[in-house]
């Protein structure tokens, strides 16, 4: 059974079509990266799946069941950390648990465990402005994972981090995905990141009215060596193939981002 099935999803902003029948499957425990020209509607697709943007047609199925609105089984990690600035790290992580009706003390204890799992012991009572960019990202990951979603949507979550912090967080993140048996959809503009983290890379066509043109399997075994893998000839060949495909999509736009 698939964790997530997106079938013929159409989204339009007014008269302008953004997604024109997108179909994508994420197997149980699968990790799909979504790449495409900027402005093609990758983020819109995630928002539609999460129930934040209304769809005009098509359906989203979660473990075989159609979803409407925001599902508690779906976690969403945004590009910006979007932590509540007036809540401490611990309170931020406890938020999702509290919304689901957990008692205050239970939620706080669980949140503390999640912060510890992300290597953040001792920052519980700090406010977001007192945390570094990498720490904020870790708090955001803990916040999203604490309510135990089964599917995780990620919209360029690591884009804002510097290279070293990004690598460390990516390593820890992959371990968590495996431990929690999460099924993941990752939107990224970073082709290398897509190939390093995912086991399928889906290429989206240029908008307006984007669709998914091709899905490439990424056959590298796990756990992966995120540094060594880059030098693998097979990695280079796959990157070249996906890049050629992407380039054709971008060229269709005449190198212009649609208005």
């Amino acid at each position, binding site marked *: 059974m698939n964790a997530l099935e997106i079938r013929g999803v159409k989204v339009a902003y007014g008269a302008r079509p953004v997604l024109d029948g997108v179909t994508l499957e994420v197997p149980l425990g699968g990790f799909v990266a979504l790449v495409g020209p900027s402005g093609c509607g990758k983020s819109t697709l995630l928002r539609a799946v999460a*129930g934040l943007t209304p769809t005009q047609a098509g359906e989203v199925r979660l473990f075989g069941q159609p979803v409407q609105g925001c599902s508690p089984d779906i976690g969403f990690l945004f590009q910006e950390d979007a932590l509540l*600035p007036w809540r401490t790290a611990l309170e931020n992580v406890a*938020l999702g648990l509290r919304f689901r009706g957990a008692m205050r003390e239970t939620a706080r204890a669980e949140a503390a465990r999640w912060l510890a799992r992300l290597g953040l012991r001792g920052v519980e009572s700090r406010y977001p402005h007192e945390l570094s960019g990498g720490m904020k990202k870790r708090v955001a990951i803990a916040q999203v994972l604490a309510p135990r979603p089964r599917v995780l949507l990620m919209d360029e979550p690591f884009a804002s981090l510097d290279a070293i912090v990004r690598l460390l967080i990516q390593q820890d993140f992959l371990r968590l995905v495996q431990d929690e048996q999460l099924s993941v959809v990752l939107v990224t503009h970073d082709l290398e990141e897509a190939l390093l983290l995912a086991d399928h890379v889906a290429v989206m066509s240029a908008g307006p009215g984007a669709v998914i043109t091709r899905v490439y399997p990424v056959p590298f075994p796990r756990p992966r060596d995120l540094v060594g893998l880059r030098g693998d000839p097979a990695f280079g060949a796959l990157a070249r193939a996906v890049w050629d495909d992407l380039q054709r999509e971008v060229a269709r736009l005449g190198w212009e981002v649609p208005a």
Partner: protein
Amino acid sequence: MRRAGSLLVLLLAWQGAAEAHWLNPLLVPPPTQVAKALGALFQNGQIWGHFGTTLEEALGGLTVGIVAGGVLGAAAALWPPLAELLQPAMTLLNAVPRVILAPLFIIWFGIGVASKVALSFLLVAVTIFFAMYSGIREVDPRLVDRVRTLGGTGLHLVREVYVPSVASWLLGSLKIAVGFAFTGAVVGEFVASSRGLGYLLSFAQSTYNASLTMALICLVVAVTYALFAGFERLERWIFRWREGRPTPARVPLRQRQDAASRYAAEKTP
């Protein structure tokens, strides 16, 4: 501490200049004489009645202004047609010095307490209206998405996102509103009244009593400053999560108004 020190130096210099007869004591009485006038005001006890009247007017205008401005601002933010309807009037009221309406209010509401409450109400309500309106409009949509995807519903959104974001706009404006409330009351009394600190001021001025005038000015400044400082402490405590960011009160009114007109422009084709 330094501020107190520089104030003391200024007072000493002033006193010295007066002792040396460099200043005309009829126009610029020395601090000791102002203090004596201030003491006399409290000694015969008459000041309390006037003080009470002004306080009553200011607090009355403040309370009603906060409620009305807040409700109208929230309604306009949540219901765009109302924003379009109120936009011209509010922009005009925000742009002109509102105290020019004082004589009109005296004609409408008489020389009693009502006209002063009305003036102080108007000053406060417009300020709070824009704070409330901008506060709700400028809520970070990313935080709304964050709470919704974590499973938060309407009530959670209000408690976790809307109330804290709006509070930061509102509390900054509240400090300004306290000052405005006293401005309204005192100016109203100054125009026409039979009681209040503004009335005493007007009396002191008409009898060319510079020391009494200065004593009354000091009193009004002290009261407003005490309230202002109280609000600032409250604000610092409530916003202990915030670091070094300017409070919205320090965002110029013009800019907040821009946020309002930008919104109205978006809505009108």
